[in-house]
């Protein structure tokens, strides 16, 4: 598997979530994603970027264009140094939230992408890696 490009963006303010969505959309178009795949990965990015900002207190996202044989993909790595997630299993449950949202962001995102990886340690931070293949 080859990494064709690797960009990094800061997520510090609301406007950065918008910028992240736009960057992900642009990269997914470059990778030749169809409209449905574009919408899925952009929506997933929107969910996680907002979590990074709201619960992680801000962080970064890396956007990598991938190629594996004839397959094209996009991998997003969101990282923050926030409080971390105490109970990952519960956080992944539909409808569970510690904030005021719908509680469907994490579980929904997992369904929007092909690969989903969540690493978190209380007090250290959270890293979420999502990948969508064309």
């Amino acid at each position, binding site marked *: 598997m080859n990494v064709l490009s690797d960009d990094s963006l800061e997520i510090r303010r609301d406007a950065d*979530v918008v910028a992240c*969505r736009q960057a992900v959309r642009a990269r997914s178009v470059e990778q030749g994603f169809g409209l449905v795949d574009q*919408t*899925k990965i952009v*929506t997933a990015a929107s969910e996680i970027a907002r979590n990074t900002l709201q619960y992680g207190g801000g962080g970064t996202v890396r956007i990598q264009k991938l190629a594996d044989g004839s397959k094209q993909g996009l991998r997003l790595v969101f990282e923050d140094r926030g409080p971390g997630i105490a109970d990952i299993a519960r956080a992944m449950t539909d409808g569970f939230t510690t904030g005021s949202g*719908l509680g*469907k962001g994490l579980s*929904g*995102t997992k369904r*929007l992408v092909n690969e989903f990886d969540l690493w978190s340690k209380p007090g250290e931070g959270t890293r979420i890696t999502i990948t969508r293949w064309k």
Partner: protein
Amino acid sequence: MASHIPDILRKHNSAILTDWLAEQARSFSRDTRARDDTPALSARFLGELADATAKGNVDDVDGEDFREIRALLEDLSRQRGLAGISPRDTAMFVFSLKKPLFARLRQELSGDALVDEMWSATTLLDRLGLLTTEAFQRTREQIIERQQQDMLELSTPVVKLWRGILALPMIGTLDSGRTQIVMESLLQKIAETEADVAILDITGVPTVDTLVAQHLLKTVAAARLMGADCIISGVRPQIAQTMVHLAIDMGDVTTKASLADAFAHALKRQGLTVVRAVKS
């Protein structure tokens, strides 16, 4: 040891100024060259620079002694930024002083003193130059913020389609600041027009994630409390698929693929039909 820079600035003031203005004329692009405030500003800058470096530490650009000169540069950046002059030219205003100043330093000093003073002068001017760029950026950010505010106001028109039927074509990002305004103007209009159907059209919303969906549902609930039913239109195929994956439940809210479908549905609910006019 006190720096020689202020003495040299004062002693050769007019010569440095002349050389500096010539240097500026060479390095600026056409628009900036045409500005007639440059000689007066440059003279003021040299005076302030001599005062600031005489009073304090040559390295301490952020200190109290440099307050006047920082204000002058910020003012300059702001005005030039607003006039559309590039940050490069504004920074060059400071950087172009290097050559004339260094020439005088070389004339007056030699050996280690020369090297030391060259180093402090270059550090000083670099920092002052960066200051103009930072100020330019701040001005830009203020402009952008104001434009965002303007957009907020502009982007939420509630239109009346028929007696009792309102439409709200939503465009762009539904972040929390905007949805608040959207909701307010919709509820206001419902009260004014006594509408009983409101169509929220999301054709122009590129991403519907859980937060956007939550905002929509809240708007629908508030409108319902005021006696108006909402129809959400403009649900494109890719948005529909994404919402299913996110397990967003729109409850009993009527949703339609296009604004036309939603309008037809609203008319039907009011017992109205659209018929072709018959030629008599």
